[in-house]
């Protein structure tokens, strides 16, 4: 819709379309013969900037008010007087609303069907803080924020390569959120980049409030619990991925950046792994791998062994387990599931509650889980140990999605073990492996480099090797440039 020439008409139109929003501020200034008006949204604009630069500059233009090219003069004057500002001219209402909501001020002049927009944005972001979800002892301590430009800046600051390209796309019919796809042009596989861009171009959605909205459009694995896209708030992790040849997606208003494609190993590793001595990290990674197996399989294995295949348990242990169980009325699987649900509820409540109340919850939780349930004869002590080990090992992983994915598979192991003992446990294991093998993102299988096997990168992914020995980028990403060291 074209702009009107009459500024009163423009004002009334804006109020009409926006439903007389309380934060729309309009003002009219008479400069000689001309009437100049400006509009801004109080909630997103900085009053100081407007009165300091804009109003002062407009009133200075009195002498030109009789000239025909007043509009151009106004444009030039504003441009010269406002430091570091973005300025544009627009001529329709749709653009006007976009800029208004973004914190721009619209200057309209009576008699011209054009308007000047200039940035008077109020900073509504918090500053760069320490990451809260992926804490490290060693390594950079800054994290992404809700500010889109700052996020890109944090990445750009780390990779000063002209080949680091960003492609910006606007997503969301109502939110008009900026989404940009970042990649290093001469490393990343152009095919993968093109597919990500195509997918984002096709997104038809009314609003994007977090990168989580975008993620579901980038994969077609909504029926799988395993995450295939890494989301991180650490700029160093983002940059490491870019250097590997992965594609990143930065979304406005969220500190979480998406990285594609993700393989299982990426979710098991932590950001800190890159900064410590390789030989020590290798040990930690083996532990984490072990923890993954324990957290998925421990309750199922316990049920299978104690209710079907007792012959595997050593004699003395079996007798002590049997005596512990003698006063428990419920089936083993039932008490395991009850205790697991209790733990999950506690974890959820701990996460939602403000920090000040968290400690009281954990005290109650520890008492309920640990002592009271055993003394009341609802569960046997060994079940508490099994569930505790399961829960503690699951907290080793930083990615919430993978922790919750393990939860589903743990349940499958429990159910099949309850029905068929060790045979059921093995069936569950087979289903688990088949599922893992069948996932892929952007043509990269989930279990790479184990299956398909890349012997060279097995060492790098399962354990790790020192940086000075990491000569190649991972070939399974089809990078254009696979050399980390030496000539391209």
């Amino acid at each position, binding site marked *: 819709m074209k702009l009107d020439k009459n500024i009163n008409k423009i004002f009334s139109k804006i109020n009409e379309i926006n439903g007389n929003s309380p934060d729309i501020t309009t003002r009219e200034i008479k400069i000689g013969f001309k009437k100049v008006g400006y509009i801004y949204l109080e909630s997103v604009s900085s009053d100081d900037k407007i009165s300091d630069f804009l109003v002062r500059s407009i009133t200075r233009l009195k002498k030109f008010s009789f000239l025909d090219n007043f509009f151009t003069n106004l444009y030039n004057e504003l441009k010269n007087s406002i430091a570091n500002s973005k300025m544009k001219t627009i001529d329709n209402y749709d653009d006007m609303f976009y800029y208004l909501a973004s914190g721009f001020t619209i200057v309209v002049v009576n008699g011209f069907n054009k308007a000047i927009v200039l940035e008077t944005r109020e900073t509504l972001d918090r500053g760069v803080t320490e990451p809260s979800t992926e804490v490290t002892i060693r390594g950079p301590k800054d994290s992404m924020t809700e500010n889109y430009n700052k996020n890109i800046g944090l990445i750009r600051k780390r990779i000063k390569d002209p080949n680091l390209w960003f492609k910006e796309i606007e997503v969301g019919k109502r939110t008009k959120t900026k989404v940009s796809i970042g990649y290093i042009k001469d490393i990343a596989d152009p095919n993968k980049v093109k597919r990500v861009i195509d997918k984002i171009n096709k997104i038809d959605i009314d609003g994007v409030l977090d990168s989580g909205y975008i993620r579901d459009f980038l994969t077609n694995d909504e029926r799988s619990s395993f995450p295939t896209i890494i989301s991180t708030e650490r700029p160093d992790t983002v940059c490491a991925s870019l250097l590997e040849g992965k594609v990143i997606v930065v979304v406005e208003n969220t500190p979480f950046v998406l990285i594609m494609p993700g393989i299982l190993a990426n979710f098991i590793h932590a950001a800190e792994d890159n900064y410590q001595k390789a030989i020590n990290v290798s040990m930690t990674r083996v532990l984490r791998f072990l923890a993954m197996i324990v957290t998925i399989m421990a309750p199922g294995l316990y049920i299978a062994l*104690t*209710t*079907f295949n*007792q*012959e595997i348990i050593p*004699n*003395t242990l*079996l*007798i*002590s*387990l*049997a*005596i*512990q*169980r*003698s006063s*428990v009325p419920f*089936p*083993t699987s039932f008490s395991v599931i009850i205790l697991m649900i209790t733990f999950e509820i506690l974890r959820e409540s701990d996460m939602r509650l403000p920090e000040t109340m968290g400690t009281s919850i954990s005290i109650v939780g520890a008492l309920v889980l640990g002592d009271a349930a055993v003394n009341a004869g609802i569960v046997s002590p060994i079940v508490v140990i099994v569930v505790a080990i399961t829960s503690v090992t699951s907290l080793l992983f930083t990615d919430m999605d993978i922790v919750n994915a393990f939860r589903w598979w743990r349940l499958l192991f429990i159910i*099949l073990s309850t*029905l*068929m*003992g060790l045979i*059921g446990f093995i069936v569950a294991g087979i289903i688990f492996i088949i599922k893992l093998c069948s996932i892929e993102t952007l043509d990269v299988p989930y279990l790479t480099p184990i299956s398909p096997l890349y012997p060279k990168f097995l060492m790098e992914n399962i354990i790790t090797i020192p940086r000075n020995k990491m000569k190649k980028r991972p070939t399974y990403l089809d990078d254009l440039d696979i050399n980390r060291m030496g000539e391209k």
Partner: protein
Amino acid sequence: MKLKIFLIILLCFFTSGCWNYNELNELAIVTGIGIDKHENGYKVSLMISNSRSTQSSSREGEAQTTVFTGTGKTFTEALSNIDVKTPRNLYLGHLEVVLVDEEIAKDNINIVLENLMRNPETAKKYYIAIARDNKSEEILKGLSPLESFPSQNISLNIQNSSQSEGISTEMVLSEFIKTILKQGVNSIAPSISIQGEENKIDNQESLKETEPKAMLKARSIGLFKDFKLVTWTTEKESQGINIINNKTERLYVTTELDKNKKVVVLLDSTKCKSDININDLNINLNINVKGAIVETDTDLDLENPKTIEKINKSTEKEIKNLVFDGINLAQKYKTDIFGFGNMIYRKDFKYWYKVKKEWDDNYFPKINFKVKVNANIESKGALENTIKEKKNES
């Protein structure tokens, strides 16, 4: 279609599953079986380890065991007699020891083996032992101040006395059956009995005393001929048998050099190689022994290589005596427990089938043994010389 397949798979789980589902508290974990003769036939005693106990004892990992007994014409009948008395399912998967009464062993041990081997639940890795001088029921009830589970008390007792003393021998059921089924070998089995006041063995109160009134004791080996127990060995004879069968891990040998000059040697490696000459039935035994001096109460000059040589010589002699003790006993009772018949079977099976039937009675007792022992004392412990000798020097 997909849904149908899914339902079929689900049905498999729900219809076939759970047939062997057992909660732990529904099981009566049998860790020991004792079989005695009874006027009706057999009297079977089962030791059940997870009987009801107080909260405190379960925390300490202690269990109170109960012994159930039942009689019947057959082993199975006796078992089902017990099953009626217990509220839980009898679970034999963790059986640790089977005690067979001396009378049954002398009569025919096959009755017991047949049932135990046929039962698919048992792991066949439990010890078999003969209850000597006492009823197996009494031995099962025996409590020890050191072990929480009486069955473990028995099995560890046998293990220890066979590994460190060479008096007894470890025999698990599968191995026992294997030797019975092999060509030309006869079986042996350890024995166990009560030492002290027999009626106090199952008394909890007596455990609280510093010196328990009654304890279990591993005794020497019983020699079998086919399915029958023929004789017991003395301690020396069983040591000899264990040396030939390569079953000794540690063995203390006391030798006398001259008069009143005793040296105790610990043999930590004995290896016996046997070589048979079929034509004239001569068997050469080559025994290599390594050991250490652990005790001597005289003034020997141990720094002198000649003394060591002397000790070696007398150890060799001592071992030779042990070995011949064992061989003589076996030849006397005409049972080839060493498996020389099996060696012949492996060397020349045509010849073996000719002599097979008469091997134990006619051939084995006539074998000439030539024993060659090579002893080598390698260590003197923490002392270089004897204390007395050192005193004399200075």
